[in-house]
């Protein structure tokens, strides 16, 4: 990974051809037309690379996930229905990122069918897909773009064949438009009428060519979400909205310290006699209660008298964990550069953060003697199925796992914690359950982004950066949801150069190495991760390591620029080695008016991030003047106000620009919160946060009044990832602006972590009671 010159590494065998290619697929036996493609058809675009590269330039997490799909020769199918619709069950999870809409667009494009006639649902756990049913790493469109189109194109071909017979005309002379096929004589037939006629009695292999990009009329056009109407009318169903007979509300009384365990419930009889309460059961995570309403579950939990075993971090706090990280920090290398070079050295700390969505962890479970059915938001449903089967003492095929659209994820739903817990409770009670975590359970016992330190040592001389070394030390990130298995099965297939680099790294370190890229010509560049302490419930929060590394990098870059007497924008434009990133940066700077005069205490910041086969640049303006910081909004933690944000994103080939813009809006909200407001405080073995009035995710009073997203034009044939692409550069731009506005170098994030802006809620009982004064606050 060092910046020495060597011959370009040839990866031509893997490069995506510019020519139109033929793909093989299948027309499947069925009552109506069913067309199939191998989900392993996806092929990442890789070309020859210049010298002086970091691993993600050659081979990144997108490639890894995409390649992991290759050996699983299992099929995805597009079905044409008699009502003229096409249906497809995507083996991924919709959590708000818009993949059902963008996937419907791919199918509508190839089929020449109106978008509202394409119905995309979520596939249940399909064990035959092995590792090809994981929603994460912003990889869905990257890995399904080609196979979904192939399946749709095969369906289209079969429809044309059937229409040719029906209309007595040659296929080549038929026109398809909006679900109708028309012959030269003007006669026509609809897809619905052809659905059964085009059906096959046997499976057969067929060859198709995909539509050329120049013929696209759906892909690349802004479209609204397919579930927009359902969302605004309250009809969209989340797991807790499903009606499963007998599945009564269920909650768990949880331990007062992180990952404590229950010894026993002392007043079971009293609890069972409470209004609405039906069942009580001890499970490994706490004492579960099932009642007619969730309110009665809360009442019961608050009355429970439970003896607890302590958790593994009993007595620990932010300070003790940070001290442990410091101890695990590997010394920075002494750079082998000119002794006259100036050294810039900084150390940053990033506190624990919660990845909880607004929909808390939840699942419906109906466990019977001979089998179990689960309904939950699950990004890795096959693993959930395996884990649930193991927990219940059943075989995998006895467990049916239905994937339900999630009320957000942000990495949280990579884990099936609630689904496994619900299954155990249902089995223990012998009843179906509708398990929901109380909000207080989320930051206190749920998955977190680990605490991280990031140290940087950079050297520069005579206007050149000679070395840039970054060492992150982190509490362990849990990758037990399966990325690890992908790695073990895929790493041998990676380009040799990459395999050598990654061999011997742990899973998290591998993910770090596959995702982190500092796209500047900074001489000797190294970025490494070391981990310690696996006692916390962690996971890959949206954009995983990148927001922290980007904040650290871009702050140091601003400092180097200052030492060289260069403008932050000019410096970045000079040193960026990637044209796409440079173009995005220039766009953000131009659109945002970089360099305009601002009052004291108000400043701009600008930052970039390159990942997910794309690049993002963000310009912000932040107001840190006392009157703004201390502005008075009822029950609000205010602080510095970002007054303007301009994002420019190059996400390669864009399927739905409106959806991409939505992801940038959300990514910015996340990034800004990471830098300014959102964190969890560990004290005495437990996290203090228990609700949204403690955990300060971005609220309306933080939102920039001026906000723009610019989608960069791209001639790429390859879609990039969108879901996480906006977070890191946003976090970094806000940090850089804050540093410039205050004339400081912030070294701990979020910047407000030192102020505890709330009174912690009780730990026993583990959940707060709902207020009763709601009618005093109507408006």
């Amino acid at each position, binding site marked *: 990974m060092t910046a020495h010159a060597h011959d370009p590494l040839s990866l031509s065998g893997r490069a995506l051809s510019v020519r139109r290619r033929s793909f093989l697929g299948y027309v499947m036996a069925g009552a109506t037309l069913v067309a199939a493609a191998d989900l392993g058809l996806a092929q990442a675009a890789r070309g020859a690379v210049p010298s002086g590269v970091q691993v993600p330039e050659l081979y990144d997490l997108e490639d890894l996930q995409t390649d992991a799909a290759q050996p699983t020769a299992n099929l995805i199918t597009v079905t044409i229905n008699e009502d003229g619709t096409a249906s497809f069950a995507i083996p991924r999870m919709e959590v*708000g990122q*818009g993949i059902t809409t963008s996937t419907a667009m791919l199918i509508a494009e190839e089929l020449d069918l109106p978008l509202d006639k394409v119905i995309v649902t979520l596939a249940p756990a399909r064990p035959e897909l092995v590792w090809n049913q994981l929603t994460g790493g912003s990889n869905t469109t990257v890995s399904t773009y080609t196979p979904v189109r192939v399946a749709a194109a095969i369906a289209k071909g079969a429809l044309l064949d059937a229409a040719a017979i029906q209309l007595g005309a040659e296929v080549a002379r038929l026109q398809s438009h909006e679900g109708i096929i028309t012959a030269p004589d003007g006669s026509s037939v609809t897809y619905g009428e052809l659905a059964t006629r085009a059906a096959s009695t046997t499976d057969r292999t067929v060859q198709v060519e995909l539509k050329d990009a120049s013929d696209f009329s759906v892909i690349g056009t802004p479209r*609204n*979400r397919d579930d*927009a*109407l359902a*969302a*605004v*009318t*309250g*009809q969209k169903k989340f797991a*807790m*909205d499903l*009606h499963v007979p007998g599945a009564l509300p269920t909650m768990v009384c949880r331990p007062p310290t992180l990952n404590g365990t229950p010894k026993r419930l002392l007043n079971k009889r009293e609890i069972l006699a409470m209004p609405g309460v039906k069942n009580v059961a001890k499970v490994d995570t706490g004492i579960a209660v099932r009642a*007619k*309403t*969730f*309110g*009665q579950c*809360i009442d019961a939990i608050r009355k429970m008298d439970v003896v607890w075993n302590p958790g593994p971090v009993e007595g620990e706090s932010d300070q003790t964990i940070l001290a442990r990280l410091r101890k695990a920090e590997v010394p920075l290398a002494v750079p082998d550069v000119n002794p006259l070079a100036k050294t810039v050295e900084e150390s940053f700390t990033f506190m624990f953060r919660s990845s*909880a*969505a*607004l*929909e*808390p962890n939840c699942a419906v479970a109906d466990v019977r003697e001979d089998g179990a059915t689960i309904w939950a938001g699950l990004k890795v449903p096959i693993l959930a199925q395996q884990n649930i089967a193991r927990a219940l003492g059943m075989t995998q095929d006895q467990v049916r796992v239905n994937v339900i*659209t999630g*009320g*957000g994820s942000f990495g949280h739903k990579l884990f099936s914690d609630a689904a496994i817990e619900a299954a155990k409770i249902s089995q223990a009670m012998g009843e179906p359950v509708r398990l929901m975590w*109380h*909000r207080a359970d989320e930051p206190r016992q749920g998955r977190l982004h680990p605490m991280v330190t990031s140290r940087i040592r950079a050297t520069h001389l005579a206007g050149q950066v000679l070395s840039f070394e970054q060492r992150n030390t982190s509490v362990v990130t849990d990758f037990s949801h399966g990325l690890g298995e992908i790695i073990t099965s895929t790493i041998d297939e990676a380009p040799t150069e990459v395999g050598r680099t990654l061999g011997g790294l742990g899973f998290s370190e591998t993910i770090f190495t596959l995702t982190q890229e500092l796209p500047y010509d900074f001489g000797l560049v190294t970025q490494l991760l070391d981990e310690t302490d696996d006692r916390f419930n962690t996971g890959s929060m949206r954009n995983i390591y990148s927001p922290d590394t980007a904040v650290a990098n871009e702050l140091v870059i601003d400092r180097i620029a200052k030492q060289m007497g260069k403008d932050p924008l000019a410096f970045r434009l000079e040193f960026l080695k990637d044209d796409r990133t440079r173009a995005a940066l220039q766009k953000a700077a131009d659109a945002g008016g970089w360099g305009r005069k601002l009052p004291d205490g108000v400043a701009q910041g600008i930052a970039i991030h390159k990942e997910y086969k794309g690049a993002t640049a963000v310009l912000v303006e932040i107001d840190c003047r006392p009157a703004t910081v201390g502005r008075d*909004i009822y029950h609000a933690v205010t602080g510095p106000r970002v007054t303007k944000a301009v994002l420019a994103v190059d996400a390669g080939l864009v399927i739905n620009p*409106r959806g991409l813009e*939505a992801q940038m*809006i*959300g*990514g910015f*909200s*996340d990034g800004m*919160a990471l830098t300014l407001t959102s964190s969890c405080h560990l004290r005495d073995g437990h996290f203090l946060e228990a*609700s*949204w*009035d403690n955990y300060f*995710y*971005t*609220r*309306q*009073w933080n*939102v920039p009044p001026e*906000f723009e997203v610019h989608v960069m034009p791209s001639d790429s044939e390859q879609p990039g990832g969108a879901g996480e692409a906006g977070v890191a550069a946003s976090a970094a731009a806000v940090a850089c602006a804050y540093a410039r506005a205050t004339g400081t170098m912030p070294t701990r994030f979020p910047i407000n972590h030192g102020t505890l802006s709330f009174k912690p809620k009780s730990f026993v009982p583990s*959940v*707060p009671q*709902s*207020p*009763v*004064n*709601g*009618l005093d*606050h*109507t*408006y």
Partner: protein
Amino acid sequence: MPKQTFVLNGKSITVDVHDDVRVLWVLRDLLGVTGPKYGCGINVCKACTSHINGRAFSPCSVRVGDLRPDDEVTTIEGLPDTVGEDLHPMQRAWVDRDVAQCGYCQPGQIMAAVALVRKVRREGRAITESDLDGIRNICRCGTYTRIREAIRQGERQM
């Protein structure tokens, strides 16, 4: 068990449940009205925002026993009927602006937005930036910018 009577989305309903059960659970768990969402249970996140007698409130923080028989509770499901259309203008603005991401908070956001427009009109004025800043409903997908745009549009069309 006490009988609780109130008007829900234009119809008088009666349900057998203890006085102290919060309205959110009566709606969701007993009546199957799932538009209002749970996000905190302590009147902080506002995902359950609905209307009582035309004003915004959080059903998670009101005892069902505190409702009078003539109190009119409107959830997102009943919002279009208040204007006698398939969709309320605020819902139309939401669709037009493609506001929702995961959609979980959006019923509450829309109910809050409608109440905000009514409130400022009672005060004889239009929505200001500071009114928008003061909206407490959380959107964990962070689509606040589009929420602000949609409220402005909905206000014009209400």
